[in-house]
């Protein structure tokens, strides 16, 4: 008998009903909501005179539109304000718990879920946001959905879905100094491409994953979607259990012991088989920097920009050429010679406390370079901010010339006032380098927090070890 993968187990445990044609009704344990993708879902409920099936299985927080300065002044953009107020109103009307903008627990939804212990192993978790994949780091099946599906889950606590295929990516070896889980996931995307994981759930395994902290695992799973997979997973181990113990929504007392035993079964059986499997030796990994407008366009800091003529096929040749034009870069340019205008440290990829610590280690006692117009540090949540301040990280940053902000998505997608101006070039710890993502005409290079801090100090990309 062959064993089951973690994904197989999660799928089977949530199967409410299966049809012969392969579509299934699966049960959703937790839905996270934010302002951008929920208003139309609530409106749909209201129109059809429906109520949430289990309002207490939903948790809401505004993150995309919130300002990162002067919270007390509220949101100045009237359209953004209306959207956040609409979320407040919908949550009040339907009885859904919301961390409002003034709540110290407010933050990016994917930082808040695990931090509060709302994200737990063995759950199915959805959110109208593709980076829901993040929560898979705790052994939960978590994936992004569209707004119609948000409404569907509100009304039925279920989703109509088809089973994905199983992929495992084994990350073996020990990370060299100056490299982090962000570098691992960028290297993975470079290897399998942005559609390499389409139709799959990716489980990250191997010694480097076992050794990784929970937060580092979240960074890995966060970007599974950039490899095309809706969900990323890491099997549960003692690190997962330890992480969850004592968090506000974690089970308590006897219940915790019961949950613990259940959680520890949330792993792939040794004899399970995967539809696809990759291995990557990360002991030779170098710090990664994206150079194009797709996360798969990535290179090591000491490499040069590739030549589109060397692309593996014609389509990519054209895509690379177009990307270089947009990025205003030419083939052969050394990555470490690329000068920057702005630096952004934050987002659901790298806005947690360990990320800020890694960046602060680099920034400590140094100064942001003259050519950097703005270097932002945006904690992923209010609680991350409090923790960072307790450790004095905010002072390290501000003394070095970084701006220390209030929590939110901020310059990851520039829906609030934090953005790139046309033509500006940014080192960002977020997850997408698409055209215009950080502001109209802006140019984004995805990097780790340590690299972002090093780039701010040097004014250009540089191996953090050689700063």
């Amino acid at each position, binding site marked *: 008998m062959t064993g089951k993968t973690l994904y197989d187990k999660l799928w089977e445990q949530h199967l409410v009903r299966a049809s012969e044609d392969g579509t299934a*009704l699966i049960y959703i344990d937790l839905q996270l909501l934010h302002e951008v993708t929920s208003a139309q879902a609530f409106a749909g409920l209201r129109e059809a005179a429906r109520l949430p099936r289990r309002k207490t299985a939903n948790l809401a927080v505004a993150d995309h539109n919130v300002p990162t300065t002067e919270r007390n002044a509220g949101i100045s953009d009237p359209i953004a304000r209306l959207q956040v107020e609409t979320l407040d109103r919908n949550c009040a009307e339907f009885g859904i718990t919301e961390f409002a903008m003034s709540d110290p627990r407010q933050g990016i939804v994917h930082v808040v879920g695990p931090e509060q212990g*709302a994200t737990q192993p063995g759950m199915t978790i959805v959110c109208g946001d593709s980076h829901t994949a993040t929560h898979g780091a705790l052994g939960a099946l978590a994936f992004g*959905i569209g707004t*119609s599906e948000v409404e569907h889950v509100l009304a039925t*606590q279920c989703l109509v879905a088809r089973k994905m295929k199983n992929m495992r990516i084994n990350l073996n070896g020990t990370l060299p100094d100056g490299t982090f889980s962000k570098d691992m996931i960028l290297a993975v995307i470079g290897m399998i491409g942005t559609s390499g994981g389409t139709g799959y759930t990716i489980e990250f395994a191997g010694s480097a994953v076992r050794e990784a902290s929970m937060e580092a695992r979240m960074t890995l799973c966060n970007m599974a979607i950039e490899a095309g997979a809706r969900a990323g997973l890491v099997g549960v181990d003692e690190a997962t259990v330890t992480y969850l113990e004592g968090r506000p929504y974690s089970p308590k007392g006897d219940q915790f012991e019961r*949950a613990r035993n259940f959680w520890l079964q949330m792993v792939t059986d040794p004899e399970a088989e995967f539809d696809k499997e990759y291995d990557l030796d990360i002991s030779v990994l170098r710090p990664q920097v994206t150079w194009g407008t797709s996360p798969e366009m990535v290179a090591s800091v000491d490499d040069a920009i590739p030549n589109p003529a060397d692309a593996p096929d014609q*389509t990519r040749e054209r895509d690379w050429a177009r990307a270089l034009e947009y990025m205003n870069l030419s083939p052969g340019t050394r990555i470490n010679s690329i000068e920057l205008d702005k630096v952004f440290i934050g987002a659901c990829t790298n806005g947690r406390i360990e990320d800020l610590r890694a960046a602060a280690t680099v920034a400590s006692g140094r100064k942001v370079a003259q050519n950097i117009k703005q270097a932002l540090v945006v904690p992923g949540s209010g609680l991350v901010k409090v923790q960072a301040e307790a450790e004095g990280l905010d002072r390290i940053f501000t003394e070095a010339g970084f701006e220390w902000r209030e929590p939110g998505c901020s310059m990851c997608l520039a829906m609030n006032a934090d953005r790139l101006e046309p033509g500006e070039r940014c080192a960002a710890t977020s997850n997408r380098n*698409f055209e215009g993502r950080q502001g109209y005409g802006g140019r984004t290079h995805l990097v780790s927090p340590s690299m972002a801090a090093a780039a701010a100090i040097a004014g250009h990309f540089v191996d953090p070890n050689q700063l």
Partner: protein
Amino acid sequence: MEKFVNYNSVLIPIDRSNVDTDALIPKQFLKSVEKSGFGDNLFDEWRYLDQGEPGQDCSGRPLNNDFVLNKKAYRGGRILLARENFGCGSSREHAVWALRDFGIRTVIAGSYADIFFNNCFKNGVLPISLPGADIDALFAQDAESGPCSMDIDLERQTATAESGQVYRFEIDDFKKQCLLEGLDDIALTLQHEGDIATYEQRRMKEVPWLFEDLAS
């Protein structure tokens, strides 16, 4: 949802792979709390030469005349042709709302990102996947002989080019029926309310902590 009706239309070629949802509808338009009104901002950054703002009248904005959506010959087109991994990136259903509002009812591409693919079916948009060689041929045809049109027949699962060439496509039966009948899938799921309740009762015994009230 509106029923999907067979139709004939010119193909609008967007010769790129990895067309992401940020490109389909830039973030500033996501601030809307409405479910329609996105058509003027479909491909906003590629379509106009200035930076678009939500709520703005687009009729006077400077157009990028090189972009296919602005070319006369493709006006009124309801089929979009693209390459691999169409709709990747953000889960924003606004991307499909923008396509639908613009009038696009079918996308033909090499492959799709999963979330975008699902979102299409919730809004009466049919995403067709064809093998790379067919996609190449369709692009080549457009490049060589100008805009070409196709007949889309969902019942028979065919897209027929003017040349008479028939491209058969695969589609999940359930999704096909939903499109054809314009079904509200929430109502369909609620027909299984008994199964859902049974499942909940069993799980409440097995894993009671998953049913804790998040408010408490």
